[in-house]
């Protein structure tokens, strides 16, 4: 279907597709099994200029659209959602700087990412998941700087990222107005990396604990204003959630394609299983959901590109496409029967990878809460 993508957007899509199919496909199984962080692929993505897509031109980027970035994420995820996350996770750590960074911060960090530097965003803690208000990490003012103490967990690109946007409480008396975002460079004394998670899926992605021990951060590293941490986080998530949607679309499309190709080859009862109506209806249902999710996702992206953006709609796109990815990978595996259950085929990996899309950047229950709260407020 023609989504009226611009020439540049199509160029981005094709470039990501080439990288995905030629460089990622051949290694995805190995990287998944061994949980290898894809440093070499990150380098290839950087050489292909993919990181420049979401960086403004003034900072060595190409200043392209949200749509373009999502097309890249979808194509990369088609080959491997875990490897794609090194890219999408970097955008999550960088978009806050693009949106709220000072000129000096932009000049320091954006060209770094344009050239392939990695970023991370650290909000989650052991007791603060869906309820971000539970963040315990403290930042205490000390002269011209702040001293941070606490532990962040489940941080994508943890340990491999060159810098971290960290949410910490500067004023515990002010509730959601008491959190502040700090940009912390890797290598800063006091920023330590703890437990590496051993995950069900997206195993090529690095997920790690950040342990902050008397981590001294100059006040100039505050992103936006003190006390604005949560507000900025929500504004960032309202947009970047679409990255998870694009990731979900890539996984779902890859699963459907694999199942159809298999069904055309596999014969039972003397004919290809693709001729069985029971399976055909499954294929049609899968395709309908994917296409509906894609239409919603890219419509939401276009809205953002035109200067708008509706948090309710991006939440819908995230929840709908990730639920779709989960359902489609389960059904696509079913079409492949026992073979689908084996590691020799990509479906079991896709099914494991799909699960995370329903959980991170806000669980799908939280998405539904966001959608409903907007609906209730808006409907008069």
């Amino acid at each position: 279907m023609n989504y009226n993508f611009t020439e540049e957007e199509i160029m981005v899509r094709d470039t990501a597709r080439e990288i995905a199919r030629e460089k990622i496909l051949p290694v995805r199984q190995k990287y998944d099994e061994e949980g290898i962080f894809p440093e070499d692929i990150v380098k290839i993505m950087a050489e292909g200029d993919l990181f420049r897509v979401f960086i403004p031109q003034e900072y060595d980027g190409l200043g392209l659209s949200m749509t373009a970035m999502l097309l890249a994420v979808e194509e990369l995820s088609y080959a491997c959602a875990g490897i794609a996350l090194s890219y999408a996770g970097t955008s999550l750590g960088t978009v806050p700087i693009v949106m709220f960074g000072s000129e000096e911060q932009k000049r320091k960090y954006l060209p770094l990412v344009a050239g392939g530097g990695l970023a991370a965003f650290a909000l989650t803690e052991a007791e603060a998941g869906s309820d971000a208000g539970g963040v315990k990490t403290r930042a205490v003012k000390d002269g011209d700087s702040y001293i941070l103490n606490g532990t962040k967990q489940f941080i994508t690109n943890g340990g491999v990222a060159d810098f971290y946007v960290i949410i910490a409480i500067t004023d515990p008396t002010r509730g959601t107005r008491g959190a502040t975002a700090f940009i912390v460079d890797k290598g800063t004394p006091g920023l330590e990396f703890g437990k590496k998670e051993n995950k069900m899926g997206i195993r090529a992605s690095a997920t790690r604990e950040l342990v902050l021990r008397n981590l001294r951060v100059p006040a100039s590293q505050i992103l936006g204003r003190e006390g604005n941490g949560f507000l900025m986080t929500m504004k960032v998530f309202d947009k970047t959630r679409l990255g998870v949607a694009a990731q979900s679309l890539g996984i779902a499309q890859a699963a459907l394609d694999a199942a159809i190709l298999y069904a055309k080859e596999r014969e039972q009862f003397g004919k290809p299983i693709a001729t069985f109506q029971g399976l055909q209806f499954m294929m049609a249902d899968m395709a309908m959901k994917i296409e509906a999710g894609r239409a919603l996702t890219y419509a939401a992206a276009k809205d953002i590109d035109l200067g708008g953006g509706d948090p309710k709609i991006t939440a819908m796109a995230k929840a709908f496409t990730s639920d779709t990815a989960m359902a489609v990978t389960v059904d696509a595996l079913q079409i492949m029967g026992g073979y689908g259950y084996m590691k020799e085929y990509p479906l079991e990996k896709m099914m494991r990878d799909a699960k995370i899309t329903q959980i991170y950047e806000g669980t799908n229950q939280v998405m539904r809460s966001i959608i409903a709260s907007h609906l209730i407020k808006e409907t008069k």
Partner: protein
Amino acid sequence: MKNIFVCVKQVPDTTEVKWDTEKGTLKREGVASILNPFDLYALEEALRIKDKDPEVRVIALTMGPKQSQEILKECVSLGADEGILLSDALFAGSDTLATSYALSRAILHRGDPWIVFAGKQAIDGDTAQVGPGIATWLGLPQATYVRKVESLEEGKAVVERLTEEGYERVEISLPALFTVVKEINTPRLPSLRGKMKAKSFQPLLWSAQEVGAEEERVGLRGSPTQVKRVFSPPQKEGEGERVEGKPEVLAHRLSTLLKEWKVL
């Protein structure tokens, strides 16, 4: 500036080249065209040298009809700085002698070659003569079948040449011409910035007169090659012997044969 020329050829995207048996020439109509795969390795090697040395300028050069500018665009999207299309009705029917003459004139016209790269061979013509031909016309030393550029200085290079028995390490003075084999590198994919640059890129378009090529040395007139007949050489019938059975049987047969051939 150190000029690296990369000679690239547009070829049909198939190993099954169709021939016009009447004219004894390639039938190019209706076949999708690509950049000769070996030339991609040549370009990559040039780009790697450029990556390390900002003094280097990579100039892609092709001789062919107008539509072969597409491969120059591809070269630019991969990182070439310039593209030159040598195109003229006078060049039609050039054989390898005339082709290499014309290309050598274009190189002289642009001037100052430090290194000239070419592919090992073109997958359609397959002669592997054009590279060496260019070196000869230019009076440059050459190393063919290069599988590794080991070291590079302003005035000399050390390269490894792939041979049937192994490889040769050659020290060669620069400027020189190298033809490369696919073992030399893994070509990069085009970057976004490269593709954007290629979109608006226009190659330099040069005629025979522009590069000072003599009319009688190009095209059919400049081509001593006479195509009498075009055919595929007959498949060699395998003279091998197929032995099947248990390992002991196989081992026994093998040792008997080796003794028969006086290997053992």
